[in-house]
């Protein structure tokens, strides 16, 4: 261990190994593999903190970190203490079982007419975090995924699936994308008006990721960038329940500790419509981090992020009315006000595609219009949800 002249330090290390295959216009095109690793050092000097990163942490980098920390106003008293971690299963596939032949075989399963581009990958990540307060955790996790874009007679759609295990059939994902593209190729204009609307799990994730989840970040609440400061403890979201749960075995964002060495734990954020709490990384937590400090990669600064957002609602039933598979431009939603206006992608009514329609509203009003949930739960991105049916939603052409 090299000497670090600081009041506190933390070293985060990430090693990624992956293998993948890509498909272009129905034909396998490339097999690739990646091996990358790096480290990030954070130091605390007089209650101030700074971060540096690189392939290795050299003496020069340590010096730069301390120099920056001296004038930093990012306050941090100490890094987390060691705790007993919960046992969560996150390693479900071995990369070594997917050599170039096996990856190639998976790619061939996607050589289907109508697939314009696709890829399949298997990845293993080892995260390790060590700090001056006794934390020394390591977790090996796996991920496999498939992403397919389909074009049929000028119609277009995408579909994807990610999992900690290889528990999906790539060709099924491709067939679904092709079917949606076929529906899109015959899309027609509809009339502006109010509809019952069913959002697919993908659409729910896209909408909530950009218009709602950041409102739960303690940082945004404290800095006046979230309406939840007004809504805390109040019933504002109908009968909806939202839980941030990293403890689900094989959940895509499950983990036993976050990227700052804080133990990951389940938290209820909304209970039957009542706002119960937020999520936070270490820096913005006022001493009570929730285990939601994550790094996009080893060189990014830890920031608040949800783990697995589990949605629940008392009523279950079938999809109804207009079905919306995805949105275009979901990242343009405004989480500060909750307002969004989005273009629909692969929307249909009774199997007939809809062309050029838009949905707009405010997420807090929108979530009060939930009629019921569907039955088949799926994880896409940060969200675990079935389809959700809304009533009385205005669609504009």
């Amino acid at each position, binding site marked *: 261990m090299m000497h670090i002249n600081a009041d506190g330090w933390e070293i985060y290390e990430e090693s990624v190994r992956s293998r993948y295959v890509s498909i*272009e*216009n129905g*034909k*396998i*095109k*490339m*097999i*690739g*593999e*990646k*091996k*990358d690793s790096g480290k*990030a050092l954070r130091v605390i000097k007089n209650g101030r903190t*700074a*971060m*540096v*990163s*690189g*392939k290795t942490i050299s003496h020069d*980098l340590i010096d*730069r*970190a301390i*120099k*920056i*920390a001296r*004038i*930093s*106003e*990012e306050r941090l008293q100490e890094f987390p203490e060691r705790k007993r971690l919960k046992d969560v299963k996150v390693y479900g596939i071995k990369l070594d079982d997917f050599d*170039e032949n096996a990856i*190639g075989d998976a790619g061939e399963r996607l050589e289907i007419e109508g697939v*314009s*581009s696709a890829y399949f990958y298997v990845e293993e990540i080892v995260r390790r975090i060590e700090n001056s307060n006794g934390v020394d955790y390591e977790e090996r996790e796996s991920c496999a995924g498939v992403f397919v*874009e389909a*074009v049929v007679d000028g*119609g*277009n759609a995408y579909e994807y699936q990610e999992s900690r295990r290889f528990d999906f059939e790539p060709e099924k994902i491709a067939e679904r994308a092709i079917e949606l593209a076929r529906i899109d190729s015959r899309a027609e204009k509809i009339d502006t008006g109010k509809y019952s609307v069913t959002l697919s799990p993908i659409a729910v994730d896209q909408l909530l990721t950009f218009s709602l989840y950041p409102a739960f970040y303690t940082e945004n609440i404290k*800095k*006046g*960038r979230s*309406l939840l400061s007004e809504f805390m403890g109040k019933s504002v979201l109908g009968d909806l329940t939202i839980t941030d749960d990293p403890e689900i075995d094989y959940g895509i964002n499950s983990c036993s500790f976050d990227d700052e060495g804080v133990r990951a734990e389940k938290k209820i954020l909304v209970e039957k419509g009542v706002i119960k709490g937020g999520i936070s990384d270490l*820096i913005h937590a006022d001493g009570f981090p929730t285990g939601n400090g994550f790094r996009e990669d080893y*060189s*990014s*600064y830890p920031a608040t992020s949800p783990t697995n957002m589990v949605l629940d609602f008392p009523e279950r039933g079938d999809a109804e009315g207009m079905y919306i598979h995805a949105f*275009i*431009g979901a*990242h*343009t939603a*405004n989480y*500060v*006000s909750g*307002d969004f*206006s*989005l*273009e629909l992608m692969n929307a249909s009514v009774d199997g007939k595609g809809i062309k*050029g329609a*838009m949905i*707009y509203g405010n997420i807090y009003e929108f979530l009060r219009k939930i009629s019921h949930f569907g039955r088949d739960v799926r994880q896409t991105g940060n969200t675990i949800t079935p389809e959700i049916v809304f009533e009385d939603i205005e669609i*504009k052409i």
Partner: protein
Amino acid sequence: MYYEIREVESYTLQLSLENGKFEKPRLSRFSGKSFRVLKNGFWGYVAGDYSVKEGLERAERLAIHEGNSEIDDCPFNGKVVFRAEKDFEDVDLEEKVQLLRDVDERLKREGVVSRRVVYIESLKRVRIENSSGGEVFCQVPRCGAVLQAFAKGKSLQFYSERHMKAGGYEIALSALNSAEKVSEIAVRLSNADPPPSGRMNVIMNPSLTGVFIHEAFGHAAEADHVLQNSSVLKDRIGSTVAEEGVNVVDDPALPEFGYFPFDDEGYRAEKKMIIENGVLKSFLNSRETAKRVGGVAGNGRADGIEIPIVRMSNTYIEAGDHSFDELLEEAKNGVVLYGSRGGETNPATGYFHFNAQYGYLIEHGGIKDMIRDVSLSGNTLEILKEIRLGRDVSFSPGFCGKAGQLVPVSDGGPFALVRAFVGGK
């Protein structure tokens, strides 16, 4: 067999001031290598810290199938080091933080509830050699600042501006001049109302025109989408896709945020006319798409050691001959929209959607009330058929995401009058 070896080194320093507090200082260094081999028309790609021999052997081992890939393997040789006016390495850390403080001071205003100023400097060095004898090296510094103000009035709103280019500390210094404008707009925006919705006349400001041409048209002109059969422009080379007089250009040689002298496939970067006088002249190409689709390579770009894919650089619509007043007069009624909060497009169909930062109603050829939370959508080719262009082009920087990779780009254009769908209440 064709092979390529790429070595990348980068350095980034990011300093943020949040409500006057110097937070999240971050310095990162990266180095990595990638190796790729094209054998029997099939690619093997390896990213990792291997010796040349091991890296190429691994890449060749992955190229086990047969495919129909071919490339333009034209070798280029050269070394380009971009010289900044004021090297950011010669400026003390304390001085950079003080610049942020000066900007932050100017962001303060009654009604502003939250402020953010971010300073970014980065340096990227790339060396590429290939089996046909090419070897290039380039070093490009980029620098700048992002300003953001949140204001609370009738609603909570934010406005932000980015000032980033290839270059040095001088770019970040230029941010000082726009701080007061940023906070003023945020405050006015917080008291603005949502726009009416429906199809109407829209004047886009240069920044929004740039995002439009990048998102709604540029992506469809990327030839990998043509090979994937997922571009609305497939089979359209030589045909009229825009109104007469419309010229669309991609030019990596401009010293804007998307500048590069050689692309990440070691191909010389040069200006491309995508649309000339309304006619689709060429796609943007990598070495592979240039060979298979036809055209000139030089737009293969990569994020770090990821695989190079077809990307834009500095993309813009050339100026037309309308003054702003003439555009207003011609619009008569509608909206004028400023800035972008990002957008997305579907290159397969030409449908796009993006959000402007703010705008104004146009009534009887005059500018009226400010509007907020306004989105714009439509079909690219329909819009380009009827577009009126203003006289002055300016550029806005951004990071463009494609296939999970982010690269620096800039988009530009003049004020432009189009007919599109505006979303609001």
